[in-house]
């Protein structure tokens, strides 16, 4: 009897629950305004047509890359003064991934949404509006900013509408490298400033230095250290392999910029060659044996001790170590970026210009009651006036005009360089990303740089040892070592890792499986016996084939071709 009772009650419950769900899906659209602060509720929607800039409103904005911040610094106040818009900023606390799905499920959208890669879900859920007509009618500033790059904002070949604006700078100049091999300045000095161009040169340099100085400050010298124990495997192991093979920064893909042909990069023989080299380094004891087990903290502390001769890493990943070294007066233990590739035939793509890569941006939600005002706000943010305001701050307070040129005030320049909270407190530089923005190569109507970050600043910010080494090589900036941006040309397809991939699609699943597999197998192959390397590599290729990597290649190729057609770059 008991059993019957529980089954009966369970099925009753289930019916009850279904009824309940029906109830909540019915009115999910009706009460979206509930948390709109009620400031401008009364008939705001009807009056929207006229330019009601005087009437201040509050727009809610979700920023996937945001942090805790209230919109009340001087620059924000100036923005409100000019546009009548006050922003209420929200962000996913603790790196929560469910914010967008919950928004979609509940229908509670903020007015403005910066969703990054999740934009596709918002589009298919009807959560964001098309901006094409608005741009056509009143988007003069946006049109001026994007110019012929406007096509790069389009969604897809099947639905070529524009759903978002912003994020990356238009006309970005390349004055800094990223994600290259890095070698200690002291190695260059000790070895008499050699030319290091290939992996062999690189290996010879760290070998020679290690033989000369088996210990640094009483601890054993580590010729090369990587960080392959967590997701940073992709940064310090996967990406440098592609860089050494002269591939552009397309994430896990190798893409032919002319044909759009995409290949999962770990299938390539060049990549095998690189990992075989790493395997050799490991065998010779040149690779830190803890490279694949130590934690980020340990890695940073090793770098900070000055005993790691070389790394392959992004600047933002080892910034803490760099700071510790300089603070300790060990400038000579900081690193110089190198244009190292497998051989002279490969070209380092480190400072390639990928063009404006539309991908992500700010959208306006379909439930917003202030869609036009929101758009006017975004358009204003793209204006020259706004761009100078967000980049330089307020005239007379953050910068002065001297001889018709903008000059940042001394106190501001100093705070900018020393106080991590400067931007947050003053608002200067805070509202550039992810809004529509000019890049650091763009100039205003007077021919002045729109951003205050010029190449001169970067050069001035090098430490004393860096300056000395640069002098010996007769250069001003490290980028001179690398094949120039002009030489490399502008990419036709942008960057493959920016492409929206439909969630749960075969492409996404195969890529995830392949990534999981390659991270494990390549790590094992590097740490294994050199005699076994070829067999291990072939076994991995077979496994990749078994998970139908070919299908992923084809789908990615199709995607790239679609993008190039959409952008008109094919």
């Amino acid at each position: 009897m008991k059993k019957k009772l529980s089954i009966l009650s369970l099925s009753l419950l289930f019916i009850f629950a279904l009824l309940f769900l029906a109830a909540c899906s019915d009115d999910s659209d009706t009460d979206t305004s509930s948390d709109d602060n009620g400031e401008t509720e009364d008939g705001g929607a009807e009056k929207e047509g006229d330019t009601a800039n005087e009437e201040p409103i509050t727009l809610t904005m979700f920023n996937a890359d945001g942090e805790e911040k209230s919109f009340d610094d001087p620059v924000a106040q100036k923005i409100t003064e000019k546009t009548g818009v006050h922003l209420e900023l929200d962000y996913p606390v603790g790196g929560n991934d469910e914010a967008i799905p919950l928004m979609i499920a509940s229908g509670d959208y903020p007015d403005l949404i910066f969703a990054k890669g999740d934009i596709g879900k918002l589009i298919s859920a009807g959560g964001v509006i098309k901006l094409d007509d608005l741009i056509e009618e009143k988007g003069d500033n946006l049109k001026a900013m994007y110019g012929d790059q406007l096509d790069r904002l389009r969604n897809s070949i099947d639905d070529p509408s524009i759903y978002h604006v912003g994020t990356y700078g238009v006309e970005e100049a390349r004055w800094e490298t990223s994600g290259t091999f890095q070698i200690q300045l002291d190695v260059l000095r000790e070895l008499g400033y050699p030319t290091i161009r290939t992996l062999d040169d690189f290996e010879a340099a760290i070998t020679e230095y290690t033989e000369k100085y088996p210990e640094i400050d009483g601890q054993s010298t580590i010729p090369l250290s990587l960080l392959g124990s967590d997701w940073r495997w992709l940064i310090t192991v996967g990406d440098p392999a592609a860089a050494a093979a002269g591939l552009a920064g397309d994430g896990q893909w190798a893409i032919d910029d002319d044909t759009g042909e995409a290949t999962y990069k770990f299938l390539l023989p060049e990549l095998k060659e690189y990992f075989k080299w790493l395997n050799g380094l490991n065998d010779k004891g040149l690779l830190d044996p803890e490279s694949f087990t130590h934690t980020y903290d340990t890695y940073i502390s090793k770098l900070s001790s000055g005993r790691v001769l070389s790394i392959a890493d992004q600047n933002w990943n080892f910034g803490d170590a760099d700071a510790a070294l300089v603070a300790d007066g060990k400038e000579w233990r900081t690193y110089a970026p190198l244009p190292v590739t497998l051989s002279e035939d490969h070209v380092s793509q480190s400072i390639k210009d990928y063009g404006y890569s539309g991908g992500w941006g700010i959208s306006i939600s379909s439930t917003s009651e202030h869609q036009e005002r929101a758009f006017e706000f975004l358009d204003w943010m793209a204006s020259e006036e706004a761009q100078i305001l967000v980049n330089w701050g307020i005239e007379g307070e953050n910068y002065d005009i001297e001889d018709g040129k903008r000059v940042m005030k001394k106190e501001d320049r100093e705070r900018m360089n020393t106080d991590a909270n400067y931007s947050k407190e003053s608002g200067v530089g805070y509202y550039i990303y992810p809004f529509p923005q000019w890049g650091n190569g763009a100039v205003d109507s007077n021919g002045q740089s729109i951003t205050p970050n010029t190449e001169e600043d970067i050069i001035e910010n090098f430490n004393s040892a860096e300056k000395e080494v640069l002098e010996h090589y007769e250069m001003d900036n490290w980028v001179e070592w690398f094949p120039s941006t002009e030489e490399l040309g502008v990419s036709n397809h942008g960057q493959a890792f920016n492409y929206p991939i439909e969630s749960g699609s075969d492409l996404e699943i195969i890529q995830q499986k392949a990534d999981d597999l390659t991270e494990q197998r390549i790590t094992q192959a590097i740490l294994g016996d050199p005699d076994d390397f070829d067999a291990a590599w072939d076994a991995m290729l077979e496994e990749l084939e078994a998970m139908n990597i070919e299908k992923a290649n084809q789908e990615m190729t199709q995607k790239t071709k679609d993008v190039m057609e959409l952008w008109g770059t094919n």
Partner: protein
Amino acid sequence: MSRINNAAEAQPNLPESNTPVHTKVKPGFPMRKGKKPSKKPGQKGFWNRMSKQKALLLMSFPFVIWLVIFKYIPVAGWVMAFQDYKAQFSIFDQEWVGFKHFKDLFNEPMFYRALENTLGMGILSLVFGTLFAIAFALLLNEVRFLTLKKWTQTISYLPHFVSWVIVANIVITMLSPEGIVNNLLVSIGLLDSPINFMAKPDMFWGIVTAADVWKETGWNAIIYLAAMAGVDPQLYEAAKVDGASRWRQMWHITLPSIRPVIIVLLILNIGNLINIGFEKQMLLGNNIVAEKALVIDLYALDYGIGMFRYSFGTAIGIFKSVISIILILICNGFAKRIGEGRVF
């Protein structure tokens, strides 16, 4: 041997032959659990009893409502597992796909590896976690120096509050080739050269279990200590009169007294074998040991929710629930049959 057997006996009826403890000093002290409803109540008896239990009905009714609203209604979301759920539509407008997601799951070799690792680490942590917690509680209960007892208990559960991010960091640092463990083993001659423990796939389950035991033993012991606080002190007095040693008191009084709690916790924990989470495995793991570190919850995160495959993620959740429910029904039935505790 006999000690163990004795310990396994129900507390109020210890066999006299093997023990000097006069447990029968309290014959008028049956435990509440001994009381069972009269067998096979007729329909009339049922209504009769119900009308007499108004207070009990009132005391449980609100909570049953609560359970239904907060726990059972959201379970309607399980229908997602049989759909290709897309957030933009209501749950009624989804495409129905039957058991497709379950088939996908059962055809995936990675899933079986994850299941093996989950159960492996789950069982290890259950066995050692329980043993250490009980042993620690028993020993702590015997400490006579009260200040030491209080401080040890307070300090022993401190690691529970330290997040796994930090614990994993400490563990990896200690076990690194330059870490304290290797230094110690090499200096006392147990090892010739340092071992990179974190790079040994065969050691991974052990390392996770050891870290878990270290972090949670003090915390898990709290329940057992509370149960020990409920033991009738007259039993100890009687045992002392008989001159029983402290070991014997532990075996014959303390342990049998907390046995119902031990058994209930065991059953609940067996039901939870498959719900071991993924945090510690993810933080302690690396690409070398990945094959031993992949657990179901991590798989569900990476290949389910992480890809916004809500339907697939829900299917994994249902699979886990079914396993848990089967496990707990088996254990509960078994415990009932041998007359030891019960969960429901």
